[in-house]
């Protein structure tokens, strides 16, 4: 249990500390140190869970099982690597005069606060607290989006705040309905929102109420996942905020929101299984619908992007759509693929955003038309971007290929006709990414383009991990995924 | 037979009291605005003077123009007969329901608008067009409020509605609360009071009702004026008796009728005071805002209806 408390307390306390001292010169190093410490404790937590099975704590208010523990570790890991990248990157932003020390304090405090809310969202057993933490994540990041105070940044932040605020409010309404359904069958109302209690009583929950609650929760949390048509905030927030934040938003926040939907889906499925009122697969069907629409629309939008960060944020929407589709499809194979995809997408996408951050520093612009010849100016950044994009587009031997392959096989098995739009979508997205990538990496170098001080270590580590996951998934990890698959679908894959 | 006599008697009292009610509203308004008020009998004197005057008509006036005052007065009189006044079980109220009441008003308004256009003056046509614009929004709102009532009481007959509400005692019904608000707004619009129309001025830019009757004189004008006062009284009695039915006579005994008359008088005095206070507090709104005002009435009626369906049934 200590490991869990540490994982939560470290970011919380650092957030407070950095809120006070965040403008000092050592703040960025402290930020990094805190994330590394949080990562270490999350590894400890993961080892605990691996050896002893799921953990609960504080009268059942916390619960770490095989599903969320790997997400907790992943969040801590990407948090640490991004902090590693942000150290020189933000220093350069400050040196360029885009940020004042006061803003740096805000940035550091928000960064840690954001990590804290996400870890809280994942480790809590209480669906109400999960909501509070999700809203907290919005509040922690909204001022980060407007960090540069340009009209575009303020606009993006306002949109982010309003759209996500409304979305998350609908999710709260869904939570209230969930509680309403639970209060009818669970004797102690104080425990009626605990996920473990809910899933134990799931089959006696009223299907009619649960169906409506799930729709609200799906739309609400789906807004944060970035599902079309509630995705409008996502490209704006990613493109206008500081790059480290884009990395953690894409790599982590979207995952956490999807995690929330899956948790609710497990309960809804159990509640609807007996009902005749709705199809027992209603939750899954809805998720598949939203997923495939997001996947297709985002793939098409990739083609018309002019801003490199918007480009990759649409790619995030596309992949989140794919994952939502996978979890909606259900069944052990698709779920396993979805879990794997969550992991590899997080790693790859945050690596890409880190590279993109360097690329924008080299070209001094985010406009795709003006980023040219990266591979000649600074080979490390150019190669990083090229390999990252190859990985995210789903080429073998990277992990994204493996997970997409699993997903396609599962689709082929249950809905053969859906493989056609999936394959088409993948091809469209591939074309959309590469038509922009090629000139950026290989084009003619503009005059006076200089190298920048780049920190490619996190990128290398993350892309190597993705490669490793593509070639051979280590035994303990596949065991974990299998446990999580069992938790979600009720049957093992391996 | 006794019933019919009683009914006729109440109708006569109703018609005779209507100018007095208008005068009372005017008096309270004067008090509130620190002005000297005319005598309470002034409307009667005006009516008597108008009746004794010669009718002057435009040469091109058609028969429609001629018969309109009688139709308006007649329709309004019939409407007054439909509304339970001092006692509930009137035979006249039993044979007609609230939709008929709305129909009488619509008939009167239709002829009013026709007559307004008949002479062909600019003002008359303008007034008619404005009147029809307002009524197009006010009528649905009124009907919606009335439907709320009839859903609560499962009847459109006013007597039965009132008896039903009396029988169940004090029940807080959100639907009735909204229906009351809506009916108040509709009543203000329909009787041409501030803030929709101002009965006291002939300002060409804003007048609605007065614009339509500019060409009338003599006994024609007297009939129309009386009908207007009657209409105000009908709305007042309607609101007082439906939403605050306590005291209304449910039997034909003398004592019950005396109590009914007394309470009704108190209710009307209070309601007139409220109307005067409202007219003092609010300024007349621009004509273009009137649609928003009436849509608010419609929305209120709709909320009333919905809250009955959502909150009160089941």
């Amino acid at each position: 249990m200590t490991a869990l408390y540490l994982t939560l307390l470290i970011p919380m306390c650092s957030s407070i500390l950095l809120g006070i001292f965040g403008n000092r010169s050592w703040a960025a190093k402290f930020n990094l140190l805190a994330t590394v410490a949080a990562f270490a404790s999350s590894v400890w937590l993961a080892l605990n869970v691996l050896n002893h099975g799921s953990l609960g704590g504080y009268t059942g208010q916390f619960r770490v099982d095989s599903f969320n523990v790997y997400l907790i570790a992943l969040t801590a890991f990407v948090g640490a690597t991004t902090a590693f990248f942000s150290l020189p990157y933000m220093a350069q932003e400050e040196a360029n005069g885009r940020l004042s020390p006061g803003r740096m304090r805000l940035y550091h405090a928000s960064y840690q606060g954001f990590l804290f809310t996400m870890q809280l969202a994942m480790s809590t057993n209480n669906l109400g607290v999960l909501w509070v933490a999700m809203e907290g994540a919005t509040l922690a990041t909204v001022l980060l989006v407007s960090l540069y105070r340009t009209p575009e940044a303020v606009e993006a932040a306002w949109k982010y705040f309003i759209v996500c605020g409304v979305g998350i409010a609908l999710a709260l309404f869904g939570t209230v309905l969930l509680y309403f359904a639970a209060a009818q069958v669970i004797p102690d109302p104080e425990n009626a929102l605990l996920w473990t209690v809910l899933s134990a009583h799931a089959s006696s929950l009223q299907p009619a109420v649960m169906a409506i609650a799930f729709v609200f929760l799906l739309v609400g949390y789906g807004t944060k996942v970035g599902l079309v048509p509630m995705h409008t905030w996502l490209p704006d927030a990613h493109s206008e905020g500081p790059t480290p934040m884009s990395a953690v938003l894409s790599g982590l926040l979207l995952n956490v929101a999807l995690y929330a939907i899956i948790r609710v889906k497990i309960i809804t499925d159990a509640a609807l299984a007996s009902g005749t009122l709705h199809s027992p697969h209603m939750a899954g069907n809805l998720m598949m619908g939203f997923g495939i629409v997001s996947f297709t629309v985002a793939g098409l939008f990739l083609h018309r992007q002019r801003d490199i960060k918007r480009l990759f944020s649409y790619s995030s929407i596309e992949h989140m759509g794919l994952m939502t589709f996978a979890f909606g499809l259900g069944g052990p194979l698709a779920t396993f693929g979805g879990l794997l995809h969550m992991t590899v997408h997080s790693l790859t996408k945050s690596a890409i955003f880190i590279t993109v951050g360097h690329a924008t520093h080299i070209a001094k612009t985010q406009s795709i038309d003006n980023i040219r010849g990266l591979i000649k100016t600074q080979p490390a950044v150019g190669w990083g971007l090229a390999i990252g994009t190859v990985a995210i587009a789903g080429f073998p031997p990277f992990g994204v290929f493996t997970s997409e392959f699993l997903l396609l096989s599962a689709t082929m098995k249950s809905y053969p006709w859906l493989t056609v739009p999936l394959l088409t979508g993948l091809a469209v997205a591939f074309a959309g990414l590469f038509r922009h990538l090629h000139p950026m990496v290989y084009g003619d170098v503009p005059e006076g383009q200089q190298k920048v001080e780049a920190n490619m270590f996190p990128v290398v580590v993350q892309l190597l991990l993705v490669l490793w996951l593509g070639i051979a998934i280590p035994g303990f990890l596949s065991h974990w995924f299998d446990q999580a698959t069992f938790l979600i679908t009720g049957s093992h894959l391996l | 037979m006794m019933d019919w006599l009683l009914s006729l008697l109440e109708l006569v009292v109703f018609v005779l009291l209507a100018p007095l009610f208008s005068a009372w509203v005017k008096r309270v308004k004067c008090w509130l605005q620190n002005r000297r008020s005319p005598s309470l009998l002034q409307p009667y004197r005006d009516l008597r003077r108008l009746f004794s005057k010669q009718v002057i008509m435009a040469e091109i006036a058609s028969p429609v123009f001629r018969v309109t005052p009688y139709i308006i007065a007649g329709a309004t009189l019939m409407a007054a007969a439909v509304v339970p006044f001092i006692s509930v079980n009137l035979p006249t109220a039993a044979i007609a329901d609230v939709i008929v009441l709305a129909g009488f008003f619509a008939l009167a308004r239709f002829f009013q608008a026709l007559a307004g256009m008949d002479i062909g003056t600019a003002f008359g046509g303008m007034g008619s067009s404005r009147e029809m614009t307002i009524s197009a929004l006010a009528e649905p709102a009124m009907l919606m409020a009335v439907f709320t009532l009839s859903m609560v009481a499962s009847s459109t007959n006013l007597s039965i509605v009132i008896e039903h509400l009396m029988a169940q005692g004090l029940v807080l019904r959100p639907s009735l609360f909204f229906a009351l608000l809506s009916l108040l707004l509709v009543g203000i619009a329909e009787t041409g009071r501030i803030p929709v129309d101002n009965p006291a001025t002939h300002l060409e830019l804003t007048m609605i009702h007065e614009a339509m009757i500019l060409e009338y004189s003599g006994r024609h004008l007297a009939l129309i004026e009386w009908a207007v006062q009657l209409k105000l009284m009908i709305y007042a009695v309607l609101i007082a008796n439906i939403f605050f039915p306590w005291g209304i006579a449910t039997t034909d005994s003398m004592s019950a009728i005396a109590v009914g008359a007394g309470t009704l008088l108190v209710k009307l005095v209070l309601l007139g005071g409220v109307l005067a206070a409202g007219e003092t507090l609010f300024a007349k709104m621009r004509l273009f805002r009137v649609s928003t005002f009436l849509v608010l009435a419609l929305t209120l009626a709709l909320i009333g209806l919905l809250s009955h369906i959502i909150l009160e049934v089941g």
Partner: protein
Amino acid sequence: MLEQLPLYQQLILTLAAMVLFTSFALLAQSRVIPMIRIFAWQGLIVAATTALVAYDSGKYDLYFSAILALLLKAMFVPWLLQRLVIRLGIDHDEHGAEHPVTVLMAGAALVIFCYYVAQPIEQFSSSITRNTIAISMSVVLLGVLMLVSRSKAVAEVVGFMSLENGLFFAAVAATHGMPMVVELGVAFDVLIAAVIFGVFFFHIRDSIQSLDVDQLNHLSEREE
């Protein structure tokens, strides 16, 4: 049936209808100070309902929620908004929707929709206040409608906060309050959100010299 309920339960239902009415009033109101006043009234009604539900159900921790709602929704947030509006000097601007009549009609349609959606829920509860689910869902969606129909930042915030009122109302009236830890968390989030909104007003005004968020339209997928 309504007439068989005790008087204070009838009062709860009446207050529910009043909350719905204030939502419509917010939709129709175009001047900002009266808008904030109506919002404060809505908060007050919600707090009063909470106290009544606490009395009705005998759950005394709901009194605490009622006080929280009173302080936060009826006093602090309106006070903050009003102060900001006066400091920003925008208290005489037009804050209305472009087509108020259409918006009101759309609002009425939304209420009917909510009733339709909530109907299957209501038959599964023995709670006396189950009917309020449709009402609170309407208040939530009317808040969303207000958000999308207004172009001024302050009006959008009022819409957002009234949406939050609907959520609170749902939690109180339909389920007799959420677990305490959740309620505290939600209240905390609302508080922070209100403060951040305040910060944003200044950011927006600094960046576009106005609080008309329709002018925030640089980021979109339109071709330039």
